[in-house]
């Protein structure tokens, strides 16, 4: 009884000390993963994921406290890249396969208040006070910040019209086999 208690105590403390020493020697500074994840994210700091910016989202992703499907502007491409990086299954059915959108200014009711272009994270809106604003299609990430601040509801997200250049074949749908009558 006595031997058992003593020897197990010694054994346990020795191993604890060994692990403690190893932890000191093998300490990892920070998490290199966070930076790698941040490089994957769109970086427009739009805040649609609920985190203050892409850096916060990257931290949450590295801690596994956020799903990899958190980034709406990133779409499927970002989800797949994150899945690869983090080694998890990409459940693409969770990604809202939303149609690509773009902000558009309704010229009749735009009052030129400049609020939208002040909040645009990618400088995609051009305009000046009392002047009609317009949107650069290539730069708009459809984050929707401009839509929120517009006092006259003249700026709205619209689906991007499909062009010949962007169109491609849909995925073939295979119906389950019909019973073959012999």
């Amino acid at each position, binding site marked *: 009884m006595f031997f058992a208690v003593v*020897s*197990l105590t010694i054994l346990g403390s020795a191993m604890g000390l060994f692990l403690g020493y190893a932890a000191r020697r093998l300490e990892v500074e920070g998490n*290199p993963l966070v930076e790698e994840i941040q490089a994957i994210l769109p970086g427009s700091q739009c805040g649609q994921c609920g985190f203050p910016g892409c850096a916060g989202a990257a931290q949450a992703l590295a801690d596994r406290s956020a799903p990899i499907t958190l980034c709406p502007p990133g779409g499927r491409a970002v989800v797949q890249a994150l899945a690869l990086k983090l080694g998890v299954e990409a459940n693409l059915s969770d990604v809202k396969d939303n149609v690509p959108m773009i902000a558009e200014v309704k010229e009749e009711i735009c009052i030129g208040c400049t609020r939208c272009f002040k909040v645009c994270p990618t400088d995609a809106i051009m305009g000046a006070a009392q002047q009609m604003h317009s949107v650069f299609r290539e730069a708009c990430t459809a984050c929707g910040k401009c839509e929120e601040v517009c006092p006259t509801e003249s700026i709205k997200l619209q689906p991007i019209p499909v062009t010949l250049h962007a169109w491609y074949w849909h995925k073939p749908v295979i119906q389950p086999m019909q019973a073959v009558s012999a």
Partner: protein
Amino acid sequence: MREYLMLLLSTVLVNNVVLVKFLGLCPFMGISKKTDTAVSMGLATTFVMTMASASCWMLEHWLLMPLGMVYLRILVYILVIAVVVQFTEMVVRKTNPALYQVLGIYLPLITTNCAVLGIPLLTTQEKLPFVNSLLYGFGSAAGFTLVLLLFAGLRERLALAQVPGAFIGAPIGFITASLLALAFMGFAGLV
């Protein structure tokens, strides 16, 4: 020499830890979706299992038996395994952060891999000498890695196959595993 080779052959194929003894099934199903992660997991387990076999033998013969504390065997073994796993985790995290991320929760879970505890217990039961215990542990782990790799390869192809709705995912995985186990039964009587 011949004896050692026979021991290796026996542990890797004939008495395969996963498909014949049915130990360590959780990582077998859990980490077998991709071949590269399967190999990494296999190597980590190999390291832990070999180390655990060696240190358990030493504790058994130099501590527990002389002091007559064999009734504490499982407790001590689990302690040793947990320490080795913790150490492995630290090393992997330091040397290969990407692999650390990929293995994720399964790395600490090597502790609860029943094969890791099972093999030292079996070597103790069979009263094997030190080198034999070491080879027993290593051979079993190599068998584990082999089967994990084979199964991951199968599952990579299964993911592409058209499977009836009710069998998609784990069910067809289990069926495949059972077929693989049947195949390994063919090694019975080899040694």
